[in-house]
């Protein structure tokens, strides 16, 4: 773990992306991406929770007994997520209704647990903070790409504003309703993985 701070921050954006490479946090990610706005709110919430949880656990790392660390981590994360949930309810009620149970599911988002276990328990608070923000951004990028394509192709809008001109529809263009359905999120992520692994041969799996 002798990575420089810059690498700690940048690695999760590409080569070590939490969703496409580490295979973490796929769960709650996909269902919220049918529109761009909830994807961004979700990404910001995860970045906040991840960075803060990393810092807290990193500060406590020498005082937590090994046997009960999972429960301690879960309680810290659950407390942070509760705060995020209350803030969202107060300031962005519509979006928080759209996200419904998925905010609560940040608690069980494997990215958070994975980073706490793999990084925060063994590192100082500042690198832990950078690691949290980096991984959160890596997750957020995937979310935003998926949300962008699904909203653009699925309903012809971005942030609820029409972007595909009327003339296209007159020429016979139709919104692809399939993109709104949940399984298409998986296909879009699979395409991202395909592009990424075609560029970076190291990431390809043997079988």
């Amino acid at each position: 773990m002798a990575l420089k701070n810059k690498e700690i921050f940048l690695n999760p954006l590409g080569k070590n992306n939490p969703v496409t490479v580490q295979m973490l946090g796929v769960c709650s990610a996909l269902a919220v991406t049918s529109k761009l706005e909830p994807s961004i709110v979700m990404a910001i919430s995860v970045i906040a929770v991840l960075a803060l949880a990393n810092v807290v656990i990193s500060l406590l790392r020498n005082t937590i007994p090994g046997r009960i660390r999972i429960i301690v981590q879960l309680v810290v994360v659950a407390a942070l997520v509760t705060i995020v949930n209350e803030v969202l309810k107060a300031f962005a009620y519509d979006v928080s209704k759209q996200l419904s149970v998925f905010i609560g599911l940040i608690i069980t988002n494997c990215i958070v647990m994975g980073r706490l276990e793999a990084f925060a328990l063994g590192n100082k608070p500042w690198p832990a903070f950078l690691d949290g923000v980096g991984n959160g951004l890596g997750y957020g990028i995937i979310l935003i790409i998926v949300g962008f394509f699904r909203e653009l192709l699925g309903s012809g809008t971005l942030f609820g504003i029409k972007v595909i001109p009327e003339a296209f529809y007159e020429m016979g263009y139709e919104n692809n309703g399939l993109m709104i359905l949940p399984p298409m999120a998986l296909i879009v992520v699979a395409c991202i993985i395909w592009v990424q692994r075609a560029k970076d041969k190291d990431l390809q799996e043997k079988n």
Partner: protein
Amino acid sequence: MQEYLSTFISSIFVENMIFAYFLGMCSYLAVSKNVKTAMGLGVAVAFVLTVTLPINYLLENYVLKAGALSWLGEQFDSVNLSFLSFIIFIAVIASMVQLIEMVMEKFMPALYSSLGIFLPLIAVNCAIMGGSLFMQQKAFANVGMATVYGLGSGIGWLLAIIGIAAIREKLQYSDIPKPLKGLGMAFILTALMGFGFMSFSGIKI
């Protein structure tokens, strides 16, 4: 009786945890390389779901919900502890997983060692937390319904992971574009299975 049956069937097929909501995807993708371990994890998840859902239901309705504490006396009518629900739910789930781990280690050491790290990771499996949160959202009429819902979603999850594991076992011998091998193909397969399961959504019992 009929509503129990319809909750059961719809939680297995129509509202399948994986194909309709993408919950528990991480362990689903990581453990689905062969059918045997997939089966072990699936059974464990189904069991934890069936046990935690009724417990969380009782906590939700007699401790956490707005006015749920009124059985203590009239002065508690206005208490609303619902902001605590995330922490309470996850604590119940974590302690149940710990309990199951201890029981398994004692009575089924072979299965215990074959599951390894994935057993404690059930605590952070979103399908289980998701089950509790959906239960809270749906406001079931009684404990029985909550139990049936837990059992049904557990069986749905088990079916999904066995299905994908069986497909991935066969897939080892097929010729897939190199960048898509492994994870990418698993994603696409899940999506296709998801489309298949969507055809159940017309069923009304």
